[in-house]
């Protein structure tokens, strides 16, 4: 396993998939809208709510909320559609006939979508700075940076899982209906403590919950001393999701080859 990770070809394939997705995202108006306009609108709306109601101390929530919403929304939108998009344009069959393992290409593409979604965070911060003269207060710079890296890994893995699951059905866009539920359960919109007690354990099964906690630890809006716990939680739950994603991917791609559904059908 380790020797395979050291193989230059593996990294080259990941990099190619990564770059390909960036090129495609830049050329696709829907992604541009999801990454740049949606977080900007959301940042302005939440910023106005807090400013008008005189609760400017909560502007951090607006930045975190709008930024992370943009990151997750654009990434999950892009990732969930990666395999389906390739299938719709008839390029999945081409990818399946190349030398590069399809899993690595899809993983690289999902990573590309994750990094592209980071612009949402930058946009929400820039909008808040210009519109509300807001400056982000980062309590712990290293933890904040770590939270970004961990978020990207988490987003990639969840994207990979969604991407693979989307192969099972051609009504994959129904997955998007659950995004808002995930955002609520992850504590992105409001703290998890406000949810019914019986639902709260479920929230900790979502990798998004842990990465958002770590992100807030970096900003100092939750207990910053627990950043290691949040990092460990995030990595552990992401590892489980990666395992599941790989298993689901292998199963659905094998099924697609057997049922001749790699192409448009």
């Amino acid at each position, binding site marked *: 396993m380790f020797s395979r990770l050291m193989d230059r070809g593996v990294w080259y394939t990941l990099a190619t998939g990564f770059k390909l997705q960036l090129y495609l995202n830049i050329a696709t108006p829907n992604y541009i809208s999801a990454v740049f306009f949606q977080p900007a609108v959301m940042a302005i709306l939440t910023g106005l709510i807090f400013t008008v109601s005189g609760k400017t101390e909560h502007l951090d929530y607006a930045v975190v909320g709008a930024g992370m919403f943009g990151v997750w929304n654009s990434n999950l939108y892009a990732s969930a559609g990666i395999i389906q998009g390739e299938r719709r344009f*008839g*390029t999945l*069959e081409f990818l399946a*006939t190349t*030398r*590069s*393992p399809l899993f690595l290409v899809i993983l690289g593409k999902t990573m590309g979508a994750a990094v592209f979604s980071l612009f949402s965070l930058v946009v929400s911060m820039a909008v808040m700075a210009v519109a509300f003269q807001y400056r982000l207060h980062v309590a712990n710079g290293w933890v904040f940076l770590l939270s970004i890296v961990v978020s990207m890994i988490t987003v990639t893995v969840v994207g990979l899982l969604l991407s693979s699951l989307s192969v099972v059905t051609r009504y994959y866009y129904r997955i998007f209906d659950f995004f808002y539920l995930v955002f609520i359960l992850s504590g992105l919109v409001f703290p998890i403590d406000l949810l019914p007690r019986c639902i709260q354990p479920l929230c900790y099964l979502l990798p998004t919950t842990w990465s958002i906690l770590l992100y807030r630890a970096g900003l100092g809006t939750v207990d910053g001393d627990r950043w290691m716990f949040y990092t460990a939680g995030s990595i552990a739950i992401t590892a489980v999701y990666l395992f599941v994603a790989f298993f689901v991917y292998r199963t659905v791609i094998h099924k697609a080859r057997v049922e*001749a559904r790699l*192409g448009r059908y």
Partner: protein
Amino acid sequence: MVEVENLVRDYLPAGQLKAVASRRVRALDGVSFSVAEGTLFGILGPNGAGKTTMIKILTTVVTPTKGSARIFGCDVVKEAHRIRPRIGVAYGGDLGLYWRLNGLDNLVFAGQLQGIGMKESRARAWELLEQFELEDAAKKRVDSYSRGMRQRLHVARCLIHDPDLIFLDEPTSGLDPAASRNLRQLIKQMKQMGKTIILTTHNMSEADSMCDHVAIIAKGKMAAMGTPDEIKRSLDTFCILEVKLDNRLPLDLALLGKRLGLSGDRAALSCEQTESGTVIRLRYKGAAPVRSLVKALDNMTILEITTRGNTLEEAYLKLLEERGA
């Protein structure tokens, strides 16, 4: 190089329950053939005959239900990873390319996905763009390309890693005559470079002029296989010998038939008066009876003698008719 043995592929119509086995559609039903290195092999058949399914199985995209297929001695299911680096595939049509990227990027990414370095991919991409006369459109988005340009880009992309075996699924489909001719020239060049090519087509004259061997598939079964000439010869039908004279035929057609020993078959001989003279048509099987016809016409001035054998299209249609396809 390619060995296919008793290949069977069943499809379940979309939205059907797996348990309903009776609704399965058999796309390929025990097809066997082999393709030697360096040959241009054509797979012919009507729509729905199973040609594309065959290509998809050989290119490792679809698994067979039964039977086996081996390429370079490797099984298409178990050793697909060994086959993929050595094959190039052009499914053709409007799909299969990144429409939002330009032609150059489509080729460069294809090269990189085939494991070629960035610089080499770029150099190779420009080389192919030039060869396929797409260099002026290299930096235009593929969604602005015409059908012919996309088709050429498909074929160019499958050559980016210099594969040993090339699959072309209806490469000239939907192209105008000039674009088709250009693409056929390029395919011939690929063959001259020693590549083995397997192509599917509906165009019989294309298959006749290009392919070394053809296989005709009808209703998922192998209807005929061999060189185009062998398939044409296998047909038990007549050929036509046509003789143009500078003047009116001075003798009765029945008498000419009698001289040729055709008294029992009136339909074998016909005569047509034209502005420039007379055209006599003689239907025959086997060797063309040129000498006996010239002798029968005695001292008449013959302007032109032509023979027209069975075309591959006639043979193909006859075979399909026999099989009820």
